[in-house]
């Protein structure tokens, strides 16, 4: 097992990894930007190294400084968290080359799976159901138009290197197609440095279902069942739950097996998420594999009792998976609310000083945050300041308890998305069960000032 791990992140996920390390008896090194010197993730760590100024590109994403920090502190491994360097194949590769374990998949896995178009082609070849679409990237407008007509409008143009809704265009009519492709290519080129795009059929009211996967270096792969992440605002996840109210046991088993097959087909290692799009009829299609631990991993931990971060670390250290598929049972229901520092109506960031931070407590409540009893929300980083994760014996109890937890949560000094979560949880459609990824955009449109 590793003796010392550098946590190449900040905020709640840095604390989350720190906690896993402490429980495993592993020493920790925090990195931080200069404005984060007093942050909780720094205070929790055994050692800490300042790696640059406030701006993430110069500190948390600064590969030479992060690796130097790993070298001067003599760590065995680096946990990248999510965001920053977590899906940077080059970073993983340099780690491998200097003999520091990157807690995640290999650089080849990241490279293959971060190219959405290639991943799609690979999965299709292996018999994994993918969304109807183009074979690989598209160039020629005429070929494009033919594919689109065959798929039937609307279609969606997606960037191969994309993520988070960038480089995406929905096309409703043939005459809009060429322009949509060009603008998506331009946006993708600007955002990711690679302008390649591909075509898929567009579903208007899909659900977003993803399976948590773990694979060890000994050929074992298990899934920890699904998360339903259909509550999104402009392709950004807002609230997640497990299990999905849209799945029954038979569909769950089927999708779980497909997810495991997809992962096995690339000989994947460590934690990953297989994302599916599911239509109203229950048909599901592979979308992509996320090659990192995800923000919403705690809902899976709540319903399976597994510590996914510890499992990641154990596997990276060469241990075997500590569960077989049959040991992984779903119990109860879990919901996660991402609490962002933002105006709940206009979604503009609300950085500043938190004058009082008092999380809820009692049964079934878990809070992951890097806030102390007070705190600072810097404008340089992600606006998520806390995750409220709630367990209940069933979905109804989880919803009632989440509402109770939101009511108890005190965050003074800044605006947060707590009122938005209340609106979601109070909504009869959400309470009833499955909603689509467009539920929240519609709800927000109704309330927009």
């Amino acid at each position, binding site marked *: 097992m590793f003796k010392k791990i550098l946590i190449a992140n900040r905020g709640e996920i840095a604390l989350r990894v720190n906690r896993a390390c402490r429980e495993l008896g592993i020493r920790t090194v925090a990195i931080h930007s200069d404005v984060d010197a007093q942050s909780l993730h720094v205070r929790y760590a055994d050692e800490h190294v300042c790696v640059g100024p406030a701006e993430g590109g110069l500190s948390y994403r600064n590969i030479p400084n992060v690796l130097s920090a790993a*070298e001067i502190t003599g760590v065995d491994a680096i946990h990248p968290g999510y965001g920053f360097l977590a899906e940077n194949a080059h970073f993983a590769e340099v780690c491998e080359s200097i003999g520091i374990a990157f807690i995640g998949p290999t650089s080849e896995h990241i490279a293959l799976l971060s190219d959405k178009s290639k991943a799609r082609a690979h999965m299709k070849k292996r018999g994994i159901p993918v969304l109807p679409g183009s074979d690989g990237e598209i160039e020629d407008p005429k070929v494009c138009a033919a594919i689109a007509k065959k798929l039937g409008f609307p279609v969606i143009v997606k960037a191969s290197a994309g993520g988070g809704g960038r480089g995406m265009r929905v096309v409703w009519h043939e005459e809009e197609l060429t322009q949509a492709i060009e603008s998506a290519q331009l946006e993708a080129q600007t955002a990711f440095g690679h302008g390649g795009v591909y075509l898929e059929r567009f579903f208007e009211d899909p659900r977003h279902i993803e399976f948590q996967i773990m694979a060890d270096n000994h050929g074992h792969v298990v899934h920890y069942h699904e998360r339903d992440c259909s509550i999104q605002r402009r392709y950004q996840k807002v609230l997640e739950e497990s299990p999905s109210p849209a799945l029954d046991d038979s569909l769950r088993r089927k999708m779980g097996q497909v997810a495991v097959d997809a992962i096995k087909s690339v000989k994947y290692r460590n934690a990953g998420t297989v994302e599916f799009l599911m239509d109203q009829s229950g048909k599901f299609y592979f979308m992509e594999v996320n090659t990192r631990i995800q923000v919403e991993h705690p809902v899976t931990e709540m319903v399976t009792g597994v510590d996914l971060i510890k499992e990641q670390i154990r596997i990276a250290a060469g241990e075997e998976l500590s569960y077989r598929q049959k040991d992984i049972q779903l119990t109860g229901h879990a919901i996660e609310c991402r609490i962002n520092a933002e105006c709940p109506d206009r979604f503009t960031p609300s950085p500043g000083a938190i004058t009082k931070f008092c999380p809820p407590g009692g049964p079934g409540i878990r809070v992951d945050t890097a806030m102390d009893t007070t705190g600072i929300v810097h404008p340089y980083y992600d606006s998520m300041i806390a995750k409220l994760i709630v367990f209940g014996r069933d979905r109804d109890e989880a919803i009632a308890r989440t509402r109770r937890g939101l009511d108890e949560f005190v965050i003074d000094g800044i605006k947060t998305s707590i009122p938005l979560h209340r609106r979601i949880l109070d909504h009869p459609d959400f309470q009833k069960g499955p909603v689509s990824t467009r539920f929240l955009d519609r709800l927000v449109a109704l309330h927009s000032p």
Partner: protein
Amino acid sequence: MADSSRREIEDLVEVLNRYHLTELEFEKKGVRIRIKRDPVPASLPQVDVSKAVESGSPLERPGPLHSSEPAHFLTVTSPIVGTFYRSPSPDTDPYVEEGDLVKKGQVLCIVEAMKLMNEIEAESDGKIVKILVESTTPVEFGQPLYLIDPLSGS
């Protein structure tokens, strides 16, 4: 105004009076009450002002630092994370010593990161007042390495 609120305010007034306060703020479950009254002038004439002034206000903040020398010193900080070396190689002399005069652009030390030697240069003319880190020590971003007195160099 509900009776209970009225009662609360009156209770607060009572406390205000009893303890000779001039202001009282009370907040509870979404109800906030603030009451204020002028300090009572009656006793003012009896205060011997001259003595109060002579005695010296205990609230006086200390002024600017008496010994102000370091205020104009420049701090050379590490622009990267790595290992600090005062000399180009183990068997050569350090680039600079305390007391040395340096020119802008002159190499002061090396910070090694990922097997690369990064030379750190002086940003202005001056005298090396203090070397803050020992050779071969790891340093982080922004860590002070040297104190330079720019006046001494001019």
